[in-house]
């Protein structure tokens, strides 16, 4: 480092408490939250150092759901990794499938027929609705509204899951996308069902917002809590609704315009405080935009094949090379980095998990807040442990 003659900046953010008996803070209390804790969305653990009730240091501990996804991906064929991607972010199997399919299609130069691209958009946006509605429910659960908002959220989620189930055969683990298309075609009845749910979802959102958004307790607990600056967010690689809540306009559906997203007319909602309330509101607004995308996609869905005729299901061996494919998942940028050496198994199989990287700034958001707020801040990051630990 020294031979360049450049002055290096200190790492951005982070806490500076060295020990529990810090001379400047007096007696501190170290609390281990998790891995079994009702508010940590699974088996996440935080080592929190408290000065009274104020957080002075917070170190996340990972690995309690480290299921060796990448190692298994390197030991099986390209196709066999597809059902495993369902289990990464288990709320959003369709977008995980798409990101993986996109990376493999990039690796092999595999085209995708138009109808499949539209179906992917429809399913990805339905997934976004499903994820954001669950997040809204869980976030409210974390503020102490035990049960009620989550009941509303899961009532809507079940409707979307019914759609997924009747199309792909499974509620959560859809395993639907293939390299070069999709597995089964959507019937006219299915599309009519999807249209029905899309059209009614706005009404549900109105009801849900009436229930929650204006609620004084929610505002008091979330506004100004866990604020994140755009500079830190960019440096820490934050993506998805959490980044846009800080006001940075970066949505891969616009930036990369992968698939057929360039054909749809939609807006990217941006926040301006970067606090927990903004992160909640961005998700609600994104759901409304997803509904317009869904309506356009369902209207314009072309007829035609859903699989590229040259695509191979068995014996798929891409040429040697590497590719990084990414899409805008509901939680942020989900990417797959693949290195092929020409054999049926990938040489290197890497998942770029959005919620893992988004947790980088958890400590920065929590410093100076009370421990009760740490729970809400974590809830607003929207993590799924299957993806954080893989």
């Amino acid at each position, binding site marked *: 480092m020294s031979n360049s003659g450049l002055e290096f900046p200190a790492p951005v953010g982070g806490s500076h408490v060295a020990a529990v008996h810090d001379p400047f803070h007096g007696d501190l209390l170290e609390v281990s939250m998790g*891995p*079994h*804790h*009702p508010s940590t969305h*699974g*088996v996440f653990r935080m080592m929190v150092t408290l000065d009274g009730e104020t957080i002075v240091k917070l170190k996340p501990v990972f*690995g*309690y*759901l*480290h*299921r*060796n*996804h990448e*190692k*298994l991906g390197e*030991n099986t064929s390209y196709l066999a990794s597809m*059902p*495993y991607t369902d*289990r990464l972010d*288990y*709320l959003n199997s369709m977008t995980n499938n798409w990101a993986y399919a996109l990376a493999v299609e990039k690796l092999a130069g595999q085209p995708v027929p138009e109808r499949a691209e539209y179906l992917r958009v429809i399913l990805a946006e339905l997934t976004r609705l499903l994820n954001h509605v669950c997040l809204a429910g869980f976030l409210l659960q974390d503020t102490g509204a035990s049960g009620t908002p*989550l*009941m509303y959220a*899961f*009532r809507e*989620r*079940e409707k979307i899951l019914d759609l997924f189930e009747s199309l792909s055969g499974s*509620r*959560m*683990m859809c395993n639907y996308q293939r390299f070069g298309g999709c597995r089964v075609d959507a019937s006219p009845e299915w599309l009519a069902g999807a249209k029905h749910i899309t059209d009614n979802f706005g009404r549900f959102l109105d009801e849900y917002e009436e229930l929650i958004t204006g609620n004084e307790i929610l505002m008091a607990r979330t506004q100004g809590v866990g604020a994140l600056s755009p500079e830190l967010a960019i440096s820490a690689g934050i993506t998805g609704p959490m980044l846009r809540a800080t006001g940075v306009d970066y949505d891969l559906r616009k930036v990369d315009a992968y698939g057929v997203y360039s054909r749809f007319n939609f807006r990217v909602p941006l926040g301006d405080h970067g606090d927990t309330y903004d992160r909640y509101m961005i998700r609600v607004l994104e759901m409304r935009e997803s509904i317009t995308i869904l309506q356009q996609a369902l209207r314009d869905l072309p007829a035609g094949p859903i699989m590229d005729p040259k695509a191979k299901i068995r014996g798929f061996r891409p040429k040697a090379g590497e590719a990084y494919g990414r899409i805008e998942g509901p939680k942020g940028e989900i990417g797959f980095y693949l290195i092929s050496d020409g054999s049926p198994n990938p040489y290197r199989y890497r998942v770029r998990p959005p919620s893992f990287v988004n947790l980088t700034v958890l400590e920065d958001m929590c410093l100076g807040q009370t421990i009760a707020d740490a729970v809400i801040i974590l809830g607003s990051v929207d993590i799924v*442990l*299957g993806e954080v*630990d893989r």
Partner: protein
Amino acid sequence: MSEPATDAPGLSDAERDELRRHGILLTKIEELVNLGRSKSVWPLQFGLACCAIEMIAASMARFDIARFGSEVFRPSPRQADLLIVSGTVTKKMAPQVVRLWNQMPEPKYCIAMGACAISGGPFKQGYNVLKGIDRFIPVDVYIPGCPPRPEALLHGLIQLQEQIRTAKSSGPKTTRHLRPGDCNYPVPEFGDRDLEPPANPAVWQPPQIVRSEKA
């Protein structure tokens, strides 16, 4: 259920059923306790992975686990009767699961929900994945599926209730917590490559595999 009530001399199950039809309920304290127990199984609010989402779905309006008296998900193991191991148990998490199990008061029950909890499931070849939670703690009901539907969880719960209802306080079919022996299960330690020990031989003995079909 099928075996005669040995400790109520003179009355068989059929006779008691006959009496019940006439409005006379003959029961024993044991059965009454078992009935109460089976209808108020409080699970631990403990989710590990994908199956946890289906477990939450089972407690929501559509499937409504409250109809079985199990909607009270307790955050503390001290207040819970049922450990639903819902998802992949990694080796890093296994000691904590065993510790939670040890902290639950007797009588306690364990459901292994989903392929991962039973055997490691699709992830069983992973270096950090425990091949089934029954290597360390006794499991009462196994629910296969990846993930099982919420109905499948309810089906498993009904089976568990049936098991609790027919439990015996004495004799050869005594329930686990009334049998002699230490109810503290050893918590595995982190080794340099694997858990130590990798399984608890007192609860887990794999049988020999015998392939019987021959052409």
